[in-house]
């Protein structure tokens, strides 16, 4: 027996040796045995992809979709289209001259306010409704 056979491998040597042992690959029929059919390509799986959505959010989204579809199906009120066009209209320009004419007026009854004087004494007289004729 050679002397090195008594020795121990170093950690590195052991790691290198251990890497020499390769296990066989798993056979492809394993998938078929478990899932019956081969896996569809990604673009086909995209059609059956599901995303978990919380129930409240799903309800709100459904409601929004229903409302938008309902509003889309409703007959629309015809809209009044206001179209603004500028039209040039020929205007006959006339000159209007306004003049104020003051007419002198005389008092109709010959009453002149300048002749009035304030009363010296007030003598109020009470007249009853029954004596109104008197």
């Amino acid at each position, binding site marked *: 027996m050679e002397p090195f056979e008594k020795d121990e491998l170093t950690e590195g040597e052991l790691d290198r040796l251990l890497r020499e042992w390769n296990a066989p690959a798993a056979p492809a029929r394993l998938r078929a045995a*478990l899932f019956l059919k081969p896996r569809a390509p990604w673009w086909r799986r995209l059609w059956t992809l599901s995303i978990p959505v919380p129930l409240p959010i799903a309800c709100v989204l459904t409601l929004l979709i229903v409302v938008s579809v309902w509003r889309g199906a409703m007959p629309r009120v015809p809209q009044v289209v206001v179209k603004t066009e500028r039209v040039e209209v020929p205007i006959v320009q006339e000159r209007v001259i306004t003049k104020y004419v003051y007419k002198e007026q005389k008092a109709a009854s010959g009453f002149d306010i300048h002749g009035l004087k304030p009363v010296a004494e007030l003598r109020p007289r009470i007249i009853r409704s029954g004596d109104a004729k008197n």
Partner: protein
Amino acid sequence: MKIEDAFDTYHQAVFDFVCRVTHRADLAEDLTQECFLALVRAPDRFNPERGSLKTYLFAIARNLVLKNYRDQRESTEPNESDLATDPRSSLEISSAVENAIRALPHLQQEALVLFQYEGLALEEIAQVVGTDVGTVKSRLHRARERLRRELAPFRNVGGVHGTV
């Protein structure tokens, strides 16, 4: 993660682990299938708070291996006399390594395979085998110590490691 995605991600690792521990590809195929069937049948048993899906699958695979080992103890128990007594006579390093690992006690074997070949961390191995990290370290240390002795004659055998 969907079960099909889990299968695509981990089936090779599970198969590899079972194959290295049982040393039988046909048995590894059956047990890998059973492992994923268990996940298909009861996906709710997996609790992400207790560990990753990877360690969960390895733990199922390990239990299946142990069950199989108990069922067929007489026929599958490694017989050291069957192993190559003079490993240097074999130029196949791969089979020499396999034989040396097969000769290890089962608990050391699985710890070594999970660490060395499946790349699991010590904590993950502890989860898979249901023990503490210290015990895993101890098993690994003893396994590697024994392999360093057993495989010493192969230090210079083969083209990769030089010639005799």
